[in-house]
């Protein structure tokens, strides 16, 4: 089950149009029941505006304006309210209006009750659709992980616990041809709510480590992470895990490796 921090991260990607379909569906299913995440989604939406507002404005040619106004000439927005129809001095019309309003009131009340019922059912359908999507995503992820584990080319690499966590360990199943890997961690201490573990790829061809993703560890001490689009196996010198601020960072903020190992 995803937590708020995960939905917040998805909302960030969704606002800029970079969330996957699965992530967007999961977020959409979660939003109706979570005002905090709705606010986060709206704030990220506003933040993306900054990207457009960074551009220097450019005045379009006058012919564009002419074309637009010619295109809408004579057409009216769908909900235009015509003030001429609002009032009529006829008494008969007034009486009819009173009757109409009474009937309309009844109808409006029943429509509102029905709409609330529909909204409740729709929210439940969205929630179930989101759960279904999550299960499908999890199934897909597990299949990919199984493929990584079962491939003939798969290499196994052991990462060992370091000074800060000597009993920890990890096993990496690296599938070089598909450039993907599954890493299983054992006996890692549970991370605080404001922290995340981050896995780093130490590359032979680059001086700085490269993030391979973030993950959380609960009391069980176990966790796993899938890595896609890895560098070529020959470029990977080693792997290491640090504890970083929630959501991860661009570069490690410390050298307290929890597990590490050479490939």
């Amino acid at each position, binding site marked *: 089950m995803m937590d708020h921090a995960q939905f917040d991260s998805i909302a*960030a990607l969704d606002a800029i149009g970079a969330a996957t379909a699965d992530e967007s569906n999961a977020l959409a299913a979660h939003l109706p029941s979570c005002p905090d995440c709705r606010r986060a989604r709206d704030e990220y*939406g*506003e933040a993306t505006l900054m990207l457009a507002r*960074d551009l220097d404005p450019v005045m379009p040619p006058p012919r*564009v304006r002419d074309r637009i106004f010619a295109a809408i000439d004579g057409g009216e927005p769908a*909900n*235009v309210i015509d003030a001429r129809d609002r009032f009529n001095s006829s008494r008969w019309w007034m009486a009819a209006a009173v009757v109409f309003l009474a009937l309309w009131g009844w109808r409006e009340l029943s429509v509102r009750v029905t709409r609330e019922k529909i909204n409740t059912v729709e929210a439940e359908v969205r929630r179930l659709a989101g759960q279904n999507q999550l299960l499908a995503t999890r199934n897909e992820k597990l299949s990919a992980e199984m493929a990584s584990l079962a491939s003939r080319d798969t290499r196994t690499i052991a990462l060992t616990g370091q000074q800060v966590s000597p009993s920890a360990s990890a096993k990496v199943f690296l599938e070089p041809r598909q450039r993907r890997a599954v890493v299983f961690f054992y006996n890692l201490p549970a991370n605080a709510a404001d922290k995340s573990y981050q896995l780093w790829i130490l590359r032979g061809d680059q001086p700085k480590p490269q993030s391979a993703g973030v993950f959380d560890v609960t009391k069980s001490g176990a966790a796993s992470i899938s*890595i*896609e689009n890895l560098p070529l196996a020959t470029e990977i010198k080693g792997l290491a895990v640090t504890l970083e601020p929630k959501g991860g960072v661009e570069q490690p903020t410390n050298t307290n490796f929890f597990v590490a190992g050479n490939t």
Partner: protein
Amino acid sequence: MIAAMDTSFEPSSLLPAVAHGDMAAFEQLYDRHSPTLYALLLRILSNADDAQEVLQETFVKAWTNAKMFDAVRGSDVAWLISIARSRGIDRLRSRKIRGDREDEAGRELSGSFGFIDKRTGADDAIQSEERNAVRSALAELPEAQRVALALAYFEGLSQSEIAERLGEPLGTIKTRMQLGMKKLRERLKAFR
């Protein structure tokens, strides 16, 4: 000056009046926001004819769908930008499918999000001040985060496509974009 910045960038909302068929409000809406939207569409499409067509579609849609605007969710310009960007990216994708767009790699990915350095009459002092504030917020993002966000926003690329384009692991790109967006959101909160 940043502290005084209005994040909605809007003196007042014109769309409710447009929804009631107020042509004068629509004209004001066009005059106020068309330079911003046109610059955005030029950045996305790199082609003036396409940008003008999509700009026209955007404003015609704004006229017919103004009643859909919800002021609680954001400002006039936010709504218009969202329509323009979505249509611009659709046009870009359909051009890619047609194979017209061959020189993807040549697009500018560095430093600034904007590549058009062309001042116009609409570029008044207030807008300049807002833009300077926005620019300073974006300048605080590391280059790698700016590039990843620009590829998503202006080219409509998915996480995997960005990872592929930049030759980086998907996890790296995801983290980079999330951190970039979080920083922009924090800056936006600081403006309030």
